[in-house]
């Protein structure tokens, strides 16, 4: 789906780029530590806000149990670097200097090339942050008497497996969206414009800021059908059992469907964008 053909040798360049970027990104330990502190603080603040809401509202008006919300928030904070709302600094530099066209000097399929790059960007920093954050939020919080705020275990083994699969599809979605972001830079000189739009949409519609089940009646189903729900909301709902194991297949099908659509769209736009690429200098 990502690269044409089936010959395994064909994937060598993309595997090599992914490996190199992945190893490189794993070196940023200080950034990971900073991220851990920020994500822990942010998670705690969100949970405190929901706790305050829940204390002052009637039980009937609560679409999610408090424990489900806490887990949802921590999962969101754990995979925050997977969501396509921040960028790869190097790509941004490349856009500004007009260097995107120079990527064409290499005998690689540019879409697959950028997808491999996005895949490293959306996994290595997540690993660096998610592991300690999960440790803090599952084991650390009960130790300080905040067991209610912890990240609970998945409700069942099936829910755990379903969550893992849905998160993998979410990763593919995040990469396809990242590549669309890169492609949008073929039309603009400054990356910030599209970035601000995308980061706002992603953090609202993925459930990162507000869990999607808390949105008012008619909005929630719409959001569920958008591709952004697959990034975090749907996997998190499978995790906490709000989406039963029997419905996991529907979620996965929807996610895969969106991946196909976004990849196809990306390939089309890339082809069009490259035809109008202006190479600076003459």
């Amino acid at each position, binding site marked *: 789906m990502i690269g044409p053909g089936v010959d395994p040798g064909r994937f*060598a360049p993309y595997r090599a*780029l992914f490996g*190199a970027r992945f190893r490189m990104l794993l070196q940023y330990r200080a950034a990971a530590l900073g991220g851990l502190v920020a994500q822990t603080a942010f998670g705690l603040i969100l949970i405190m806000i929901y706790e305050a809401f829940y204390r002052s509202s009637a039980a009937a008006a609560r679409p999610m149990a408090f424990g489900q919300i806490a887990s949802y928030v921590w999962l969101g904070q754990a995979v925050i670097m997977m969501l396509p709302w921040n960028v790869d600094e190097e790509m941004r530099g490349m856009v500004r200097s007009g260097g995107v066209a*120079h990527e064409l000097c290499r005998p690689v399929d540019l879409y697959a090339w950028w997808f491999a790059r996005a895949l490293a960007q959306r996994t290595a920093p997540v690993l660096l942050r998610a592991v300690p954050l999960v440790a803090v939020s599952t084991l650390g919080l009960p130790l300080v008497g905040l067991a209610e705020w912890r990240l609970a275990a998945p409700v069942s083994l099936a829910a755990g497996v379903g969550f893992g699969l849905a998160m993998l599809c979410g990763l593919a979605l995040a990469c396809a969206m990242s590549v669309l972001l890169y492609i949008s830079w073929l039309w603009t000189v400054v990356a910030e414009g599209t970035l601000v739009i995308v980061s706002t949409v992603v953090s609202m519609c993925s459930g990162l800021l507000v869990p999607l089940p808390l949105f008012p009646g008619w909005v929630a189903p719409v959001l569920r059908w958008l591709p952004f729900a697959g990034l975090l909301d749907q996997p998190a709902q499978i995790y906490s059992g709000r989406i039963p194991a029997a419905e996991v297949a529907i979620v996965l099908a929807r996610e895969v469907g969106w991946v196909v659509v976004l990849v196809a769209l990306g390939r089309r736009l890339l082809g069009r964008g490259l035809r109008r690429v202006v*190479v600076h200098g003459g």
Partner: protein
Amino acid sequence: MPQIVVEQLVKTYQIAERAPGLWGAVRGLARRRHRTVRALDGASFAIERGELVGYIGPNGAGKSTTVKALSGILVPDSGRCEVAGRVPWQQRLDHVARIGVVFGQRTQLWWDLPVVESFELLRDIYRVPPDRFARSRDQLIALLDLAPLLDVPVRQLSLGQRMRCDLAAALLHAPDILFLDEPTIGLDAVSKLAVRAFIQRLNRDDGVTVILTTHDMDDIEALCTRVMVFAGGRILSDGTLGELRRRVSRERWLTIDLARADAVVDEPDATVIRRDGARVWLAFDPEVVAPAELIRRVTSRCAVRDLFVENPPIETVVARLYAAHRVDERGAAGGGAT
């Protein structure tokens, strides 16, 4: 059949413009004005296998645009372009796998990776078989003296070191054409000589066709068997350095060190172009007065300590060519503004 054939290549760019000042910026939000710039305006040439060709010309003359079209990263508006039977932008993957490209202004290596890892990444990108890769890597490391640099991340290399690594990176897959866009820009004297010696060896011993753009006339004099002068997207001159000189002017310079600083040199067939104490520079046309005759006349009139005849520096020749071209352009109907 020539390895590279270019016929009537045209490439135009749309450049967004805005009026200066705050009002201009506000108006620019609503309506953009565009100006069309012709980067290439019907360039044609053919290059044989194994040639070492230099492109020179002022900034914006079309040199780099030509290199980008030949290396498949830019699609021209019209014209024909074939490299070893391939149309670069139509068969891009196939094409770029068989050429090497070095841009002096930007590296093809990865900033964060040690040099040797960049090389390994390139091996996978170009799908070079492991034994062939090891052979060409070791050879390039020896020729470019890269051994001490292999474990250094690219961002920590000096410009000269980086350029040597970039040259190696462009050649790991053994291409038979190498494009170099300003390969010596910003390099110190020693690095320049090293880069030139390497390019020359590559062309002579391995028969690699080399096309380089430069602003450094020493590159041209040291390396190129053929020079193309670009201006305004067209090729003003194409030939050997000697042909370029003859085309622009037959002028020679006679530099004389006089015995006495106050001696007067006055020759009807030569002009004094500069005087600095006892040293005098005369310009003359060898068809009007033979160098031997001129020297005889000068030495018979005043005491001379030393003298020598030389060609004007290539910079002067090229500057004259540009000046002549600008005169032509003013004579012709205006530019391409819309």
